[in-house]
């Protein structure tokens, strides 16, 4: 292919690539504008919107709620996926593929339908509008994302190591926590960080489940956009972007990002 065409294609592809973070960058720029909106030429810079957000208890509370829920969801989903994949790996029941298909099935539900379904069950148990209800719903939503990386890491464990440990007298507890857990740690770290960030940023399902007592940061951002689009929103939004960026960078440092584009060996 002639060189100019390749260069053109490459430039076009780069333009499309940087289209992806564009709205986020515009929000970040807005959050530092003293005027509260972007104008030409750009006006004075200021941190006033960040100060306003940090001194408003509604935003502080929603931010802490979201961090707390995401932390609990990440630990729960990862622990459940670890115990489940470990048992599946050891026992290899014939129905395991069918079981894993059910684990993955929330992925095939449009989020609006999943939201209604979860409202039905949480209303029945009286957990609608509670933090516990949101945690339970988020575990359902995130479990597939925890299951896959851990199952992949588990499948890579050399069976002979487990065999040897067992012959040398390691009991079941030791096998699971002393051998399999550390050997599957890349999957566990990926699962923890991935489910944390999905839960932290989830809005479509969560907006069905919040109530007067408890709301999450993305749902509150949504509510405020509809009521009054104050520039404080830009500062808050930028804060969520920073949390997301930190988690992605952590994942990149600790494990690498290949997981997202790697095909299952299974």
């Amino acid at each position, binding site marked *: 292919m002639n060189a100019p065409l390749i260069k053109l294609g490459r430039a076009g592809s780069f333009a499309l690539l940087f289209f992806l973070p564009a709205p986020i960058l515009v929000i970040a720029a807005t959050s530092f504008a003293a005027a509260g909106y972007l104008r030409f030429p750009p006006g004075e810079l200021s941190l006033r919107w960040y100060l306003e957000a940090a001194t408003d208890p509604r935003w502080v509370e929603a931010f802490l709620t979201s961090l707390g829920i995401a932390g609990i969801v990440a630990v729960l989903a990862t622990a459940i996926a670890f115990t489940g994949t470990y048992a599946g790996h050891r026992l290899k029941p014939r129905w395991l593929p069918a079981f894993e298909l059910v684990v993955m099935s929330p992925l095939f539900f449009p989020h609006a339908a999943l939201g209604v379904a979860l409202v*039905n069950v949480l209303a029945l148990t009286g957990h609608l509008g509670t933090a516990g209800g949101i945690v339970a719903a988020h575990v359902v939503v995130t479990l597939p994302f925890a299951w896959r990386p851990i199952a992949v890491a588990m499948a890579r464990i050399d069976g002979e190591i487990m065999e040897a440990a067992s012959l040398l007298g390691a009991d*079941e507890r030791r096998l699971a926590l002393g051998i399999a857990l550390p050997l599957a740690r890349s999957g566990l770290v990926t699962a923890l960080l991935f489910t944390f960030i999905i839960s932290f940023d989830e809005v479509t399902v969560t907006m069905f489940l919040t109530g007067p007592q408890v709301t999450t940061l993305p749902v509150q951002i949504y509510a405020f956009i509809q009521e009054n689009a104050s520039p404080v929103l830009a500062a808050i939004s930028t804060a969520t972007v920073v949390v997301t960026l930190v988690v992605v960078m952590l994942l990149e440092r600790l494990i690498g990002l290949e997981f997202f584009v790697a095909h299952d060996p299974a």
Partner: protein
Amino acid sequence: MRTSATPRSLGWLLLPALLVLALFLGSVVLLFLNAFWTKDGVSLVYFRQIVERPDYHEVFLRTVSISVVVALASAVLAYPIAWLLWRLPRWRNLLLVVVLVPWLVSLVVRTYGWLVILGPKGFLNEALRWLGAIQSPLPLIFNDLGVVIGLTHVLMPFSVIATLSVLLQIDTRLEEASESLGASGLATWRRVVLPLSLPGVFTGIGITFLTSMGAIVTPILLGGIRQKMAGTQIYQEVVYNFNMNKASAWALCLLLLSGLGLMLLRALESALVPKADR
């Protein structure tokens, strides 16, 4: 691996996962109960309330057509990005961050970004006015165009990831063979790389179609009150009308339509992609 004595008690470790599945399956069962069960037994009354309303037909039609447009647009726009990441292995990790961060940032934040860019007093309209290109702001949001732009952008990273993961599996020797046999770069792409990457493109189309069908936040914020989609209608039934029966019936209609869409896509994929490539 089966060590000599795999105790059956390990089965208990599946219990937590089973509980989560029970919660999910229970919610699906309740979805059916709420949609079909009335005081007088099984009835289609809630579905009739939906099917008999011509304005709802329009909502379904808009939901499906917007989702199809969005899925195709994000597949086409994402392909060059995936191709770029595939061709630049040394930069791949860094460029992946540029794809993954927007993907993982809350979609309410990304939608808000489009509101700031496309709104009547937004970044784009102000810039165009400053340049003297327009007198009055262009109507870029509170219509289907805004929803399509917003949803396409929100879902594009999915398509990039799906396409790239398939591109990365292509044996580079195939490309070398094609070029050493005299095919130009473009011909190699069209006749070797593109057919091999199609399964990834189809996966991306499936995921983005499904997500778009169930979207709520982006259609409400960028479409306005009148441009209803199935998701916004469902949300309204639950949160403002407290009508769980009708909302459940809506959700089942949405599931049915999404399932049909995915089956059609599968059929299309089998017709277009030769078996050996999959």
